[in-house]
């Protein structure tokens, strides 16, 4: 599809993309789906998701031990090797222990004009946490205003909220179309769409997503071969090949619990009313990531409910090596799924994927069980 090619184009060289964009817009890097992007956008800045895509992360060795996850090592490598020189700054919401230290190392070893720690609450189940969340966002707004000598008006926030709601709604719509008719678009293309939507200028992303959703909605492709329906669960996925290897092995990823998927687009910001309070409310109550706490069963319940809603046959845990929050959740969530009769498998990756042959064998074995 033509629409897909434009998403792919930006992923071919994200660095070049932001370099070009930086001529007319200041770029702010971030690496967590709890980043209140709406506020960055409302400040007239461009939020750019850091995926740490450098294949060789040895530049990070000077600062981080080998037992640090490849995502953080990749992001640090990108910035230390000059790939992110077109940034005007970065924002670090408190994510996990590792990203919290990445924030320190970034602050101490780079010299961008802007830097902010947005230390959001970890606990998301109390009134005090809710109010603190909002207070942190108000402080962030003030920090952006002071840092760039601008005023972020409520009107600008309302415009950004609307835009992000459009982006999230279209992403959801595309995911739903795919869940209903997986043969219309490949999973790897969806993965590319998600990643590119966090790199592209958001007005462009919204328009491209609208085109794609419309195009898919109109597509009269013949019904494809039915395959098993699996759900991918993990931190984020920057490996489009996983989807295609799975498809060749006999399964479609029809839903996910990923920061490059449902955790990014689920939940909209209420329009009208106080924009900061509305943004806070969305992030406070969105689908939770394991680095946050709401209840001790929230994640397992979310996953099971997605399994039921999207008629999932099996769950694949995509575990980034050294990702503590996900690794701690895994045994109990797996147990919870087992108790519900939902099969699952664990795939641990570090940086790149294992050789395709080995991966195919593992996937096929799992899919045969479904």
């Amino acid at each position, binding site marked *: 599809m033509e629409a897909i090619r434009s998403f792919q184009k930006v992923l071919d060289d994200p660095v070049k993309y932001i370099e070009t964009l930086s001529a007319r817009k200041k770029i702010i890097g971030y690496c967590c789906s709890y980043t209140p992007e709406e506020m960055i956008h409302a400040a007239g800045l461009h939020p750019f998701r850091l995926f740490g895509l450098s294949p060789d992360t040895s530049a990070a060795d000077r600062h981080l031990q080998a037992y640090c996850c490849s995502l953080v090592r990749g992001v640090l490598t990108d910035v230390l090797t000059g790939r992110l020189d077109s940034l005007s700054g970065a924002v670090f919401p408190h994510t996990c222990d*590792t990203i919290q*230290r990445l924030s320190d190392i970034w602050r101490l070893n780079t010299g961008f004009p802007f830097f902010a720690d947005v230390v959001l609450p970890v606990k998301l189940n109390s009134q005090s946490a809710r109010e*603190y969340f909002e207070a942190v966002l108000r402080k962030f707004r003030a920090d952006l205003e002071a840092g760039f000598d601008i005023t972020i008006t409520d009107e600008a926030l309302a415009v950004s909220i609307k835009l992000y709601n459009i982006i999230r709604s279209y992403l959801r719509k595309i995911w739903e179309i795919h869940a209903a008719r997986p043969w219309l678009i490949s999973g790897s293309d969806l993965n590319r769409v998600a990643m590119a939507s966090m790199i592209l200028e958001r007005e462009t992303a919204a328009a491209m997503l609208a085109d794609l959703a419309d195009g898919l909605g109109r597509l009269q492709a013949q019904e494809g071969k039915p395959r098993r329906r699996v759900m991918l669960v993990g931190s984020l996925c920057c490996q489009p090949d996983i989807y295609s290897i799975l498809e060749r092995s006999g399964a479609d990823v029809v839903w996910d619990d990923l920061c490059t998927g449902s955790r990014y687009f689920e939940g909209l910001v209420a329009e009208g009313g106080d924009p900061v309070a509305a943004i806070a409310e969305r992030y406070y109550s969105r689908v939770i990531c394991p680095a946050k706490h709401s209840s001790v069963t929230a994640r397992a319940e979310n996953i099971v409910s997605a399994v039921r809603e999207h008629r999932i046959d099996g769950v694949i845990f995509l575990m980034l090596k050294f990702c503590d929050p996900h690794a701690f959740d895994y045994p109990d969530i797996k147990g919870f799924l087992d108790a519900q009769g939902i099969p699952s498998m664990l795939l641990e990756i570090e940086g790149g994927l294992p050789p395709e042959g080995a991966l195919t064998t593992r996937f096929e074995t799992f899919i045969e069980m479904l």
Partner: protein
Amino acid sequence: MSTPDKDKKKSFRSAKRMREIMTEYYINAKTASQTGKKVAWITSGGPVEPLIVMDVIPVYPENYGAMIGASHMGGDLCAKAEAMGYSTDLCSYARADIACAVENGGPIGGLPRPDMLVCCNNICGTVLKWYEVLARYFKVPLFVLDTPFCHTEFPDQARAYVRRQFDEYIAFLENACGRPFDEEKSLEVGRLSIEGQRLWKQVLDITAHKPAPMTAFDAFFFLALIVTLRGTQVAVDFYRALLGEIGERIDQGIFALENERYRILWDNLPIWYRLKWLSDTFASHDACLVADTYTTAWCGSMKYIDENNFFESIVEAYTRIYLNIGVDEMAKTVFEMIDKYQVDGLVMHSNRSCKPYSFGQYDIQRMVQEQKGIPTMMIESHMTDERSFSESATKTRIDAFMEIIKASKG
């Protein structure tokens, strides 16, 4: 050159007393269900004082993790956790403790079952995940005290948030215990907590004396009471007696090493299953580990505590502890300790079990080398999982490190 045998003769009489206190403490904790007391499992950096006020027995899985490590049971227990699905890259305290809870095994026959869980994330995000696992397993209430990370500052918003959570914490305890919080008793507990921390600080300060009357390895051992019994008279009496004993030893000319020539600062948690080996290895070079950043954490926030307003001021003290601050803030503490204890070198334990303590060490290491000009070295391990430790490789590195120190100091 000192020998381990001679060092053994110089063991502290307070060590015997501490073992008695800890034994009694664990007996009380393990018989709590018979004596009608409630047991709370709490993180090592968590505010224990409200539990003491409520007469709830605090139990520390992390202290237990240290016991597991010291008794060389960590490897087996961690392997059991791995069989349950926990990654080998996770904190070895957490893995060993989760295995103990499920297996009902480990030293002293396991910990007493908790009636409630209190998790303060001022030391790491790991404790949050670990306590979520425990809450699911034991099916008991969990209170999370969320202390926002203070990279460079403690903003007003964070202060207000933590302050409110202390009220929520007390309400949680009142609900769990079915009785009100005793304000009057809290004043006494606050006073004892401050007194205990002050004495602990004096104990650690005393190793600035040349030669040092005790080592960081002793501090790792004596730490248990300021962690577990902070806010009680027992801890105050103990540290007062320990301080007296150390004073006596200085008067009598009894020091940690026969011939202390080099003074070393240790960073990060201990390697619990190699304490004696490390102590002997450094001692064989006449090197004394005089101080460490870890045990200092239990008195490092005293500057924020107001004696006349204890329960208000601990909001800041518990939020701005050593591990909940930025790398540059941590480096400042390291610099101060280098000067205070006049050390010749810095040994950094790159602890695979503790990412927030270990990531950033390379930056601190460089700052130390550049600004303090002393040699530094890294030792890698999982603090409670002896399977990850290479004794021969570590020995080689320590020897090489000591050669550099000897060459630079003579």
